């Protein structure tokens, strides 16, 4: 088997739902050994969210949990008792890094603040992924995904224009906001890992999801600080073009440059209106955006998504369909790139999901195992840490660790 990029990197994940687990998934899919620590009998709350197969809700059959936790091991461990804490500390001595998303102060109150952990294991990287960071007046504020995305100014900026501007600021589909903040945490964590491998030293990383999300929209955020300009929601994201209707759905057409306009006009077979004075240059086209979009929509109504995009792309105009999941599954592009992976799950049956969005020539990401059942690896992990079978039996009998199904 080829070596994986993060082979031998030992990660402990004390995170739930989506942001932290997505960061852990990135590491696990690249080959890191990720031990996910979960509460016995309950597990990650993602286990209790759908989608579920038609057989109905089951904590070992959550599609969301599956997607976020491929390639990880599950240790069901109670951190409420000294015996469980002792196991956790031995785990952290073994690990290269801890990903954690507990509210600021939680680890300190358990006697495991960063300074303590650094003494136990000077190599340890501790990445804290929280909504507002470890300091500041809002650090204890509670969030669910829509709140975290709002904190970063992103619900406000996500969808604009006449229609969306009249409606409330909008959440993104699925767990998009959470997952993207997991990506942010992964970047700093990997840089710290690189430095750890050079120097043998660990550190603490304070990742504020609010700050990462704001950083993605940085241009719009600092406009006020620099120019006093309030970024509103009334104007369209693009003065013309954008998502437009066609025969069987919608396409997205973005055409900000003059030479692209010429190509677009050519692709439409030079309709008379295109030489109209109102559309003479980019400035005028922006002024007359609604009228222009009306004419484009009229032209598009005879085309399917696929035909319109083929025609426009052939002319060098940036256009793409608004894809549903089935459109994506049917796409020859994604089929040729083997984008979707299939696994056979004992309860869920056939599960299909996308691989990571990049292909590495020497160390490709791989599915080594499916998402773990709660506590599936408890005994194995403890044995790796040097616990004897009898000790493990005792801890299990006392309920401090748990194996098997919920």
């Amino acid at each position, binding site marked *: 088997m080829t070596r994986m990029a993060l082979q031998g990197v030992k990660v402990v994940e004390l995170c739930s739902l989506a942001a932290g687990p997505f960061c852990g998934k990135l590491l696990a899919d690249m080959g890191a050994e990720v031990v996910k620590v979960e509460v016995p009998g309950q597990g990650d709350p993602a286990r209790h969210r759908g*989608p*579920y197969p038609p057989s109905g809700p089951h904590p070992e059959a959550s*599609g969301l949990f599956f*997607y976020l936790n491929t390639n990880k091991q599950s240790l069901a461990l109670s951190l409420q008792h000294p015996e469980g804490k002792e196991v956790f500390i031995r785990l952290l001595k073994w690990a290269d890094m801890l990903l954690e998303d507990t509210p600021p102060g939680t680890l300190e109150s358990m006697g495991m603040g960063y300074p303590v952990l650094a003494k136990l294991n000077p190599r340890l990287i501790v990445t804290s992924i929280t909504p507002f960071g470890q300091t500041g007046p809002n*650090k204890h*504020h*509670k*969030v*669910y995904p*829509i*709140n975290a995305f*709002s904190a970063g*100014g992103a*619900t*406000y900026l996500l*969808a604009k224009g006449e229609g*969306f501007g009249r409606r*409330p600021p*909008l959440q*993104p589909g*699925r767990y998009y906001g959470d997952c993207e903040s997991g990506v942010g945490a992964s*970047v700093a964590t990997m*840089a710290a*890992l690189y430095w750890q*491998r050079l120097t043998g030293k660990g*550190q603490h*990383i*304070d990742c*504020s999801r609010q*700050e*990462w999300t704001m*950083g993605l929209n*940085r241009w719009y955020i*600092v406009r*006020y*600080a*620099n*120019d006093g300009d309030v970024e509103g929601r009334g104007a369209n*994201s*693009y003065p013309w073009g954008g*998502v437009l209707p066609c025969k069987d759905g919608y396409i*997205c057409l973005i055409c*900000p440059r003059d030479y692209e306009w010429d190509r677009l006009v050519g692709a439409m077979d030079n309709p008379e209106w295109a030489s109209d004075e109102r559309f003479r240059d980019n400035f005028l086209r922006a002024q007359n955006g609604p009228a222009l979009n009306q004419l484009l929509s009229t032209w598009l109504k005879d085309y399917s998504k696929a035909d319109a995009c083929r025609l426009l*792309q052939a002319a060098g105009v*940036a256009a*793409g369909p608004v*894809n*549903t999941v089935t459109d*994506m599954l049917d796409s020859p592009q994604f089929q*040729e*790139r083997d984008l979707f992976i299939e696994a056979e799950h004992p309860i869920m049956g*056939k*599960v299909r999901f*996308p691989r990571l*969005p*990049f*292909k*590495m020539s*020497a*160390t490709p990401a791989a599915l080594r195992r499916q998402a773990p059942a709660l506590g599936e690896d408890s005994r194995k992990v403890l044995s790796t840490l040097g616990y004897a079978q009898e000790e493990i039996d005792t801890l299990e009998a006392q309920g401090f660790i748990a194996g098997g199904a919920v």
Partner: protein
Amino acid sequence: MMPLQGVRIADFTRDLAGAFCPCLLGLLGAEVIKIESTLRPDPTRSLARFFGWKRGLTMEGLDSSMEFCHVNLNKLGVTLDLTHPKGMELARRIVAVSDVAVDNFRPGVMKKLGLDYEVLSRVKPGLIMLSTCGWGATGPEKSNASYAPIFATVGGLSQLTGYHDMPPPTVRTLPDATAAGMAAFAILTALVHRQATGEGQYIDFSSVENIISLVGDSVVEHSLTGVVPGPHGNRNESMVPHGTYRCQGDDRWVSIAVADGPEWQAVCHAVGHPEWLQDVRFSGHQERLRNREELDRLVEEWTLGRSAEEASAVLQGAGVAAVPAYNNDQLCQDPHLREREYFAQIEHPVIGKHTVLRPPWLLSETPAQITSPGPLMGEHNNYVLGELLGLSSEEIEQLAAEKVLV
């Protein structure tokens, strides 16, 4: 000391999706050499009119764009005509002293310039090269042109966001910036692999696939249920109330998410409506889900009477997840972000002193830092060609006269 100190990156990227990736690595200490030319400057350099125009900045000249500066922080700037044989040769020599090369040209362009992985990996054994574009380096759609909103429509996000009774949203900026984050992660995994083995590699990155990976649970849902997932507005299948609610002021909103019975009780008491607890329409979770529109109306009656900050403070005080759906002026004045010093001042030779966001992570031992603003055109030609490549000043003058450095 920064974590990636000693890592050098030859940066052939442009626009946000490309340029922000090496920028993130530069904020973590990598030395990033941005290679461009006045013949084909990074298009972001022409975005000065978008913000900054009030400060007298114009699109004339290529050094006055705040947009460019903010996604090219910490980079060195070199101007090379890559269509000139001597320009190509100098680019190869820069790669020869680098660890990583990054580009976001369409597939085939780097090969035409004699700068593809096959050539560059001979020039520099152990090189890590990442090429990013919309659809990836292979497949029938590989040559397509695209902008951020097209990543979102083709990658499924747009279809999963918004409302059934409206066209899907045109999502600006976020899809570019997140792709850059994920690409930075991919490069870092390759760097860690190279640290262990000395082996370099080629990474084929797709911004469309990146979006799919962030909403990948929708693909899982389809495989489990056969349902084609669609948009849900601000609804959540298990939380109620859930959404963004209008507050006092002009387009001011607060996001509120309530998961279960105890949180619902806390809401009723916090907003001074304990009688809601007796209301048969809201007596249980199922009832609240069924009557969510009526509930949303009542909640908004309460939020309308106060500022977003006040509504959030009252609810957070009762343990309820509520955060303003911040816009840019609220964020720029937010005490929490001020205490965390998220807004930094930098000095730019043309733009002057202005506000930018500091790096979005706080690392305890090797802090990420802004060390310089985005480079002026050719600002570091002498350092890179003279000090790094060892050219004499006469040779550099000669190259300038021959319009290789342009």
